[in-house]
């Protein structure tokens, strides 16, 4: 075992982690621990853009953006946080441009902007051009630009270090414990402040746009240390994933004029969202697609998908603005999007919930108090700027605004305190997990349990949910968690043991899926991405509040989930009926 000592440790090197690292490296001695090489992070898969009211191509202002964000989140957004994000959006985009990001440009040489779902002029009048973009590679450009600037600032990375535990001593952050994939060695990192920026958890669904590596590692280990997870029942299903594969096709395709059609060729979104049509918010579009499919208007021999139609757009426009997604259609479906519509279905995309933080990125241990020295930013966190449904582009914005804030706050905090002493046997828990899996003589397979988890989640906890389906999911997950205790791996070696890694990741997915299902079962209303057929309306009296889920451990070691609720911060917008 090795022990390292830093001022600040950042866990994860996607957009939020690297944005934080650029700030904290200039202020405190910082280490970035990442289970992937930084440029492999899933920020790179984001496509359509990053919204900010630059008003480069038409009138816009941050207050309209805030309103859209609050409405898009179905009034579960903390409005103070949304205001901060939308105000600071302008500088966040300009910061990236100054760091070198190659945005697409207007004829005047300014950053170009395009339409995106749910982003409107003057509180819903019409779609507005707010998304700053680089073709359909905006996330790739953000990830590359941030990595380039990490190189410039000499950020210290520990690549392929998998963080498995958070150390808290006397209520204060003491560090983290990591497993080095190359060698199998355990490393303890003592730190005054820790920033979690480890990304999402979409791999508990089968059809998902998420990478294999998005297994909720940060959320799960914080949760097991007794800290709450907020709003985990709110998961976004992006309307346009490639049918069956789930690969993302950007909403920017509809921003450029693409249209959703059913088997009759009908532009069905006109019936669901008369003003915004195909650019309604994602939850609205995804429900509409499944309604079409359920009512027999789906496409294909089994009627199980709809089309994203780009065939009316000039090929030059597709080549210039949507080169990657058109290539995906060619590569994975063998079709030509100039002339063929693309078969799509909603795909599990983004966790609105996560580790609760305040607007400085400080992690909450209950509704009001923070854990000194602990921070989170990006998809792993819940500020909450996305509420019950995130607007497209606001995730790239979130990672930049709150990644920067968390990086500065964590580094500044580290300047004011001494290191907290490490607890005795700091690596004890991690060693137990690793050795337990390596020595297991069980007969259960990681792949089989994961497959069954993904199947129950897709069947029972997706776009449409009921009390019955969610109870089924809870029961299925409980059974799988029981079987997981007898899981065994084949690779017993030390070097690059990805077999072991996948087993640990599955444990994280199981815990978080249970939180999602239990939180969703208790929320007897429909709001944003959480739709209950048995409670089809929003209930602001009972449920305009955030879910806070805690793991309770009984004396005999059995765990259960305790749910609590936290009020929503409302500043200027009272809840209204949500129409697009």
């Amino acid at each position, binding site marked *: 075992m090795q022990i390292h000592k830093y001022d600040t440790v950042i866990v994860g090197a996607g957009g939020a982690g690297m944005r934080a690292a650029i700030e904290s490296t200039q202020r405190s001695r910082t280490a970035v621990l990442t289970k992937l*090489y930084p*440029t*492999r*992070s*899933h920020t*790179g*898969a984001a496509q359509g853009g990053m919204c900010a009211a630059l008003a480069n191509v038409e009138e816009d202002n941050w207050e309209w953006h805030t309103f859209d964000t609050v409405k898009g989140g179905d009034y579960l957004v903390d409005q103070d946080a949304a205001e901060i994000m939308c105000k600071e959006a302008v500088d966040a985009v300009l910061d990236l*441009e*100054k*760091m*070198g990001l*190659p*945005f*697409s*440009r207007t*004829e*005047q*040489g*300014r950053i170009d902007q395009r339409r995106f779902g749910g982003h409107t002029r003057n509180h819903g009048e019409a779609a507005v051009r707010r998304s700053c973009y*680089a073709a359909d*590679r905006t996330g*790739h450009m953000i990830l*590359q630009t941030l990595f*380039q*600037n990490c*190189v410039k600032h000499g950020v210290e990375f520990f690549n392929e270090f998998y963080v498995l535990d958070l150390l808290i001593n006397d209520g204060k952050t003491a560090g983290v414990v990591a497993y080095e994939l*190359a060698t199998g060695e355990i490393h303890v990192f003592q730190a005054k402040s820790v920033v979690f920026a480890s990304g999402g958890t979409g791999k508990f669904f089968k059809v998902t746009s998420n*990478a*294999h590596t998005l297994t909720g590692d940060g959320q799960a280990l914080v949760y097991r240390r007794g800290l709450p997870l907020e709003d985990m029942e709110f998961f976004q299903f992006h309307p346009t994933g490639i*049918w069956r*594969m789930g*690969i993302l096709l950007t909403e920017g395709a509809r921003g450029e004029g693409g249209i959703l*059609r059913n*088997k009759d060729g009908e532009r069905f979104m006109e019936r669901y969202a008369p003003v915004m049509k195909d650019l309604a918010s994602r939850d609205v579009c995804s429900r509409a697609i499944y309604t079409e499919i359920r009512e027999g208007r789906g*496409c*294909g*021999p*089994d009627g*199980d*998908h709809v*089309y994203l*139609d780009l065939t*009316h757009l000039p090929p030059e426009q597709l080549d210039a603005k949507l080169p*990657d997604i058109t290539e*995906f259609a060619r590569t*994975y479906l*063998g*079709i*030509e999007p100039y002339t*063929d*519509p693309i078969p799509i279905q909603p795909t599990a995309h983004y966790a609105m919930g996560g580790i609760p933080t305040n607007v400085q990125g400080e992690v909450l241990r209950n509704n009001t108090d923070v854990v000194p020295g602990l921070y989170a930013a990006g998809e792993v966190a819940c500020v909450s700027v996305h509420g019950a449904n995130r607007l497209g582009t606001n995730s790239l914005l979130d990672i930049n605004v709150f990644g920067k804030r968390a990086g500065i706050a964590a580094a500044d905090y580290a300047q004011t305190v001494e290191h907290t002493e490490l607890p005795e046997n700091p690596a004890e828990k991690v060693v137990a997990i690793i050795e337990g899996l390596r020595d297991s003589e069980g007969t259960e*397979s990681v*792949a089989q349990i994961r497959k069954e988890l993904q199947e129950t989640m897709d069947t029972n906890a997706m776009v449409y949910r009921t009390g019955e389906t969610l109870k089924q999911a809870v029961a299925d997950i409980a059974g799988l968690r029981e079987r997981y205790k007898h899981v065994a791996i*084949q*690779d017993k*070696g030390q*070097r*690059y043991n*990805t*077999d072991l890694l996948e087993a640990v990741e599955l444990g994280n997915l199981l815990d978080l899926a249970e939180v999602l299902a239990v939180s969703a079962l208790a929320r007897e209303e429909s709001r944003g991405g959480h739709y209950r057929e048995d409670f089809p309306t929003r209930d602001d009296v009972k449920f305009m509040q955030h879910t806070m889920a805690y793991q309770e451990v009984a004396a005999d070691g059995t765990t259960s989930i305790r749910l609590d609720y936290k009020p929503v911060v409302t500043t200027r917008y009272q809840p209204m009926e949500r129409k697009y």
Partner: protein
Amino acid sequence: MSTPTVEKHSAALDAAEVGGVKLITVTLRIRRFNPEELPDPVWVDYQLEMDPKERVLDALNKVKWEQDGTLTYRRSCAHGICGSDAMRINGRNRLACKTLIKDVNPEQPITIEAIKGLTVLKDLIVDMDPFFQAYKDVMPFLITSGNEPTRERLQTAEDRERFDDTTKCILCAACTSSCPVFWNDGQYFGPAAIVNAHRFIFDSRDEGAEQRLEILNDREGVWRCRTTFNCSEACPRGIEVTKAIQEVKRALVTRRF
């Protein structure tokens, strides 16, 4: 405005929408290496049933999940964006997640081995540190002088287009590890580092071109390129890598960029 209907389907769309799949038996012939077990690499065959429209990565996953959990490789996004899974498939560098089974002659065993020129650590995993070091050595970040503008720097669409091709790089190392010069001389910067230098040399906002060109004028720099075009053929992002290298060479001679 076109209105797709079931009657107007192209054959390609019909093929894409086929519900039931016809599985074929494929053999993956994988070059395995684990120094914890054996000092030398060995070729191992795995037979499995696959939908030919699935990815080579799907086949590797199927082996790992159902037959042999010790098989080790890197992967993440699974759709050609993260650059984790460059490997030699039937002797050619490709991303396993962007290569469909049907396109690699599945009637014969599909050979899979680690990319060349970087030390193999286990199975398909190579040591990427030298690759990233070469990248870092070309100063891959925007260099400017003077006060920062309050708003964005202006750049015409044409100036932006000038370096568009090289912004697509995902640092997968498919190009560098396909280069015969790099195989023989690990000190050579390699195509990927030059691509990333190109991305800044030809960015109208950047002022660091002279410094980068001097770095690439080195004995192990751009002049080592023998224009074999392996790199361009290997690039999963379709970057014209050899052309970019030629443009850097020309900029070194003319000092115009």
